[in-house]
């Protein structure tokens, strides 16, 4: 148990360090932008002013309000302070709503969509890959090339095709939004039903994309494992296949979990763009609106939130890996 604490303690510490650096990057990168940020911020207000001194006064007011007249490190400290109080600034494009409020709403939709989609996609993908590896003949020959092609299609590409086929051409499912545009969020059956209907298309799109990638990996790993010595030996001894299969797939799963951790960043990124296609009211659409509107507190907040999501997801996967991989357990017991 003591070994476990040390192992996990190190991991958590590392992630906290990564978080701090991510915060720093998130803060400094946009501020290294060439040009005067104040001019951009105040451009609307000074658009009709012609007197120079008045314009200068407005700029000065903005500088003080946003703390832009202090030095960079001071600004960073203020930023961190505000962050810990949950204040991420005020949005420009949706003035005067606070960034935290906007993101708070969107993130629920995104998590509700992506977490089940990634889990379901991962499970089904690995299952299909395992089956393909086990029954080499018919199933495999169809599944392999199909999934190879699907996994190469970009996430948003799949999203666009799904919207076009199912929503526009076949008119089976709604094309955009998180719920009917004539409804307001409430706890009525109508609202929940509408939410579920709008959930289908984005959900199955993301599941399909994840399946494509996972199936191929799992298939290769399973083929590799099925050719291992212990499998041949067990078969020789007469142990039934369905007992052996359990061990084989448990071994094949481990690199898949590591692979999941490595590819979570890309997956979330791709799913975010897919979200935009569906105009699903999650972080992706919010970020798109922020970029179009030149709203950099909101962009900053969105990227920070996405980074934190990915970091947490990575941490969870690493913890899971520590529990599942017996080699980690053994190493802890030795130490």
């Amino acid at each position: 148990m003591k070994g476990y604490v040390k192992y996990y303690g190190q991991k958590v510490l590392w992630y906290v360090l990564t978080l701090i650096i991510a915060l720093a990057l998130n803060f400094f990168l946009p501020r290294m932008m060439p040009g005067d940020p104040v001019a951009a911020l105040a451009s609307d207000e000074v658009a009709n002013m012609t007197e120079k001194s008045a314009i200068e006064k407005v700029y000065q007011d903005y500088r003080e309000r946003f703390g832009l007249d202090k030095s960079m490190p001071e600004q960073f400290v203020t930023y961190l302070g505000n962050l810990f109080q949950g204040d991420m600034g005020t949005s420009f494009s949706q003035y005067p709503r606070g960034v935290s409020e906007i993101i708070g709403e969107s993130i629920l939709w995104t998590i509700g969509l992506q977490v089940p989609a990634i889990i379901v996609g991962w499970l089904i993908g690995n299952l299909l890959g395992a089956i393909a590896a086990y029954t080499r003949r018919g199933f495999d020959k169809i599944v392999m090339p199909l999934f190879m092609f699907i996994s190469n299609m970009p996430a948003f590409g799949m999203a666009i095709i799904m919207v076009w086929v199912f929503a526009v051409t076949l008119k089976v499912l709604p094309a955009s939004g998180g719920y009917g545009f004539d409804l307001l969020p409430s706890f009525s059956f109508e609202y929940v039903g509408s939410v579920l209907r709008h959930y289908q298309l984005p959900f199955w799109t993301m599941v399909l994309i994840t399946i494509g990638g996972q199936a191929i990996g799992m298939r290769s790993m399973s083929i590799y494992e099925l050719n291992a010595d212990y499998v041949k030996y067990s078969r020789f001894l007469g142990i039934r296949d369905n007992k052996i299969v359990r061990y084989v797939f448990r071994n094949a799963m481990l690199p898949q979990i590591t692979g999941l951790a490595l590819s979570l960043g890309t997956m979330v990124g791709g799913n975010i763009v897919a979200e935009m296609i569906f105009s699903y009211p999650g972080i992706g659409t919010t970020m798109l609106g922020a970029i179009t509107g030149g709203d950099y507190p909101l962009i900053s907040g969105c990227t920070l939130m996405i980074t934190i999501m990915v970091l947490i997801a990575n941490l969870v996967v690493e913890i899971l890996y520590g529990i599942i991989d017996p080699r980690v357990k053994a190493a802890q017991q030795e130490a």
Partner: protein
Amino acid sequence: MKHQIKQIFHSPKFVVGFIVFVFLLLMAIIYPMVSAVGPLESMSKIKFLAPGTYINVEDTLNAEAGVIELDVVANRVIAALTEDEKTKMVEWLELYGGVEEGSIDIGDAETLINTWNSKYDEDIRVTGTTALRKEYQRLAARVENLLESSGVSIAEKNENGELEIVKSYKTKEFVGVNDIANKINFPLGTDNFGRDVLTELTSAIGTSLRLGLIAGLIATLIGLTFGLVAGYCGGVVDNLITFLTNLFTVIPSFILLVLISYSLGQGSRSVEIVAIVIGLTGWPWTARSVRSQVVSLRNRDHVNLSKLSGHSMPRIIVMDILPYVASYVVMALILQISSGILAEAQLSMLGLGPSTTKMATLGLMMNWSQQASAWQTGAWWSFLPVILSIALVTFSLNLMNTGLDQVFNPQLRDS
């Protein structure tokens, strides 16, 4: 070396990928040159022309017309009637024409018209508002008009301002498409700016490939250098570089791309700069895999021999270790190109891609298509070929990579 190249070309996956890739590359180079239209030349003020051949209407006057025995009238009526009008016809026939409900299929326009012709009687009193009666009368008149087309006359204004008939056509006269002087074929239609999609697409493939190449080269070079140094030197340098690599693996490169691209601002995002930025954020996994290769190589005998002989570190790295990781680097380069193209497409969809009006990239085409709500209006030719091209390019590159992988690592070969 020669033997390895021969082996590579024997691998089926590599050959397939290679053929597809070379095909796309040739299309990208040759088609824009032979096309009648420039890639970014706006050909029409109408948005989204569907794929097909477009004929200049005035030129049909000058072409020789001959009669061909085809039932033109039925086709013309079928094409001219809107869904609404057809529905109304079915309504009338069911209510007053003695036709059973649901027995007429609105999709079968010929039967509908024949039934209408035989059953319609304008004397039958229609119950309902005057407006409804007038509607049916108008409908009947329109159908009769269409059915009775007895040819058309083209008139021009003469010097007195009066219309003078220039030419008359019987209803069954046709002109040959080849006789028309001005026609243009848009195999894939036009996009929302009126540009020919096929020409734009092929030139965009070329630009995207170039962008992918730049990004891939930069990412591979950085990854290679970091991997070599970290793997060979070990110790503090290794720990530092590994820490950096892990850092950039976990922080999604997509986020970094968004932040940097946004910070650069609208003015300075040319294709080359975007490529450089993508390269700068894509190196971590190359570094990681090169490093693990080098770590296993650094205790080989020839390396120890060079160390004993007193060769300098850079020399050992370049002459003794690099040749062994070369095959791996080539594979990494291919994968980096493919992921660079994807990253650019994603960035452009967000609106943070290259801001240029002189060139098109695959991502930019997708972005324009999205802003014009192409998939809601059903203009499939403006986004479907682009998505397929992106998929094909990445697919062929990844296929080549898998082929190479199987040649260089025999244990991965499919049994």
